[in-house]
């Protein structure tokens, strides 16, 4: 076969076959390293594969003391560090039959909700960026930074590192209520203005539609599934908080955006309610030296976070956790076919995925 014939045949194949192209593992639009391969006949994406293993870290936690293990656990996903600390400590306390006082529980709820506000603002900001909405993206980014500063003032660290220890919770809730109201003063106005923009809303509606019984977190609630560990897990007691489940039925990126947007005022009200019930720098004397197995389930900003821990004489024998981001990566892959490439960033960001949760624990 001469060259012309071969080229003609290749061109024909290109017309009928799918073209594959890579995105990542490092690229300007990605916050973390991940590799994706898109398959398309031309415009619509027919399939996408995601390889999240590029930045997979290996963590040797087995054989470490609870305190040393906690240092690593809080750095699995730094952005959701409070969720990881509290999930781990709750499982440890269950394993060792430790009763935690109510004001410690309230302090933990407060931290989780502060973290959720920042995480939801982050997802909303990152959904504005690919739409070219620079002003609202910057305004949301400003609110996010103010929330980070508030977290820094409350806990001493902008990511809650070192805030929770066995028997100790380092927080200061002085003037927190006024500060959180001040930080979110403009929030509803920014949201109203965003929702009145048809250009923005159209980019999200019907993009990345999915309804799947495996869904968790904000993605599940955006598809009509009433799944929220704050409502149906006994790891943390939200029964005395002004908590209400946010549900939508559309199942697309817009619904995921709206669930996160509507949960921000809910989290603010929970923080105000919880802060009135707690003291500063909470210390409770407990012995963390026993043995046992414990599990916990808490609602991280991305969804259900399970921990299963086995302790032997105060040493972590084994630790397992289920990452909400790994579930959300699977849902993203399933929701992408049928969308065009320019929809991809909106769909990806709407799930609030953190690749740092892909770790190998030894």
């Amino acid at each position: 076969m001469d060259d012309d014939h071969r080229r003609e045949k290749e061109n024909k194949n290109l017309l009928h076959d799918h073209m594959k192209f890579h995105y990542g593992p490092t690229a300007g639009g990605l916050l973390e390293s991940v590799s994706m391969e898109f398959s398309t006949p031309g415009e619509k994406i027919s399939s996408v594969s995601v390889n999240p293993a590029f930045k997979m870290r290996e963590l040797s936690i087995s054989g470490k003391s609870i305190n040393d293990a906690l240092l690593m656990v809080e750095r699995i996903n730094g952005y959701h560090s409070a969720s990881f600390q509290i999930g781990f400590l709750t499982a440890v306390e269950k394993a060792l039959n430790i009763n935690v006082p109510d004001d410690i529980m309230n302090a933990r709820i407060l931290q989780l909700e502060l973290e959720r506000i920042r995480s939801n603002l982050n997802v909303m900001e990152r959904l504005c960026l690919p739409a070219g909405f620079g002003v609202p993206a910057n305004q949301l980014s400003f609110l996010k930074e103010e929330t980070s500063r508030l977290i820094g003032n409350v806990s001493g660290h902008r990511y809650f590192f070192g805030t929770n220890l066995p028997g100790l919770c380092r927080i200061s809730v002085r003037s927190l209520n006024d500060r959180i109201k001040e930080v979110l003063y403009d929030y509803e106005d920014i949201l109203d203005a965003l929702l009145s923009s048809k250009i923005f809303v159209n980019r999200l509606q019907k993009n990345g539609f999915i309804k799947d019984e495996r869904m968790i977190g904000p993605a599940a609630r955006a598809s009509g599934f009433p799944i929220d560990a704050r409502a149906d897990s006994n790891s943390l007691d939200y029964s005395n908080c002004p908590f209400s489940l946010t549900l939508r039925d559309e199942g697309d990126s817009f619904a995921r955006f709206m669930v996160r947007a509507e949960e921000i005022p809910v989290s603010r009200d929970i923080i105000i309610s919880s802060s009135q019930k707690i003291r500063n720098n909470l210390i409770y004397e407990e012995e963390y030296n026993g043995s046992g197995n414990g599990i916990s389930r808490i609602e991280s900003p991305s969804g259900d976070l399970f921990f299963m821990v086995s302790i032997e004489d105060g040493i972590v024998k084994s630790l397992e956790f289920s990452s909400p981001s790994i579930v959300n990566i699977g849902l993203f892959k399933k929701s992408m076919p049928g969308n065009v490439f320019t929809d991809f960033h909106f769909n990806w960001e709407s799930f609030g995925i953190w690749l740092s949760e892909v770790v190998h624990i030894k």
Partner: protein
Amino acid sequence: MVVGGCSYKMTKNWFLRGTLKGIKTEKFPAADPLNPPLWPSRLNGSGDVQCPTDAIKDGIWDEQRCIFCRRCLPNYKPTEEQDIFTVRENTNEFRKSLNIYFVDTGSCGSCNTELSTIFSPRYDANRLSIFAVNTPRHADVLVLMGVLTEMMKEPLYKALEAMPEPKAIVLLGTCSITGGIMGKGVLLPEDANLILAGCPPSPYTILEGLERLKGGKK
């Protein structure tokens, strides 16, 4: 803010909404930071403590090993000073502008978000001619974050090769410098032009470090 009787809440025009909100950017690094975090910041104290990363040995604190876990309290206390960085090689080549490209070689995500925060309204790194670029081919500086995983070695070396000369390397955060408690560092600190300590380094530390790499004076 109200200008000529018009509040930013009265308009749906994004340009006006942005303008009427006024300037939110701090004057840092020309002025002191308005809200420096307690952790991480320079530690001050004395005595021996049980440090998980050996950042405190024989009474000497090494900022590049420290993960700011607070186990050294109350012997060592944070000072809120944010200048915990080392410029190994200060050059005039990037004085006019600095284009940065970052590679996450295995971070927890907090270094990534603190780096992106320097472009947010409070810090606005663009006013100091510091820009983020989408490809290493347009970059002056490669910012590395996180421990080095096996699979990120090739993308890292490819990014380094793709950069034009002159180029500089920045290690951002304890994981990339020494590995901290999470693994091994990315490069030897001697190979980097700028080392930003912290777990994660605050936006103040990152911004001032990059400005000093450009040749800016305090």
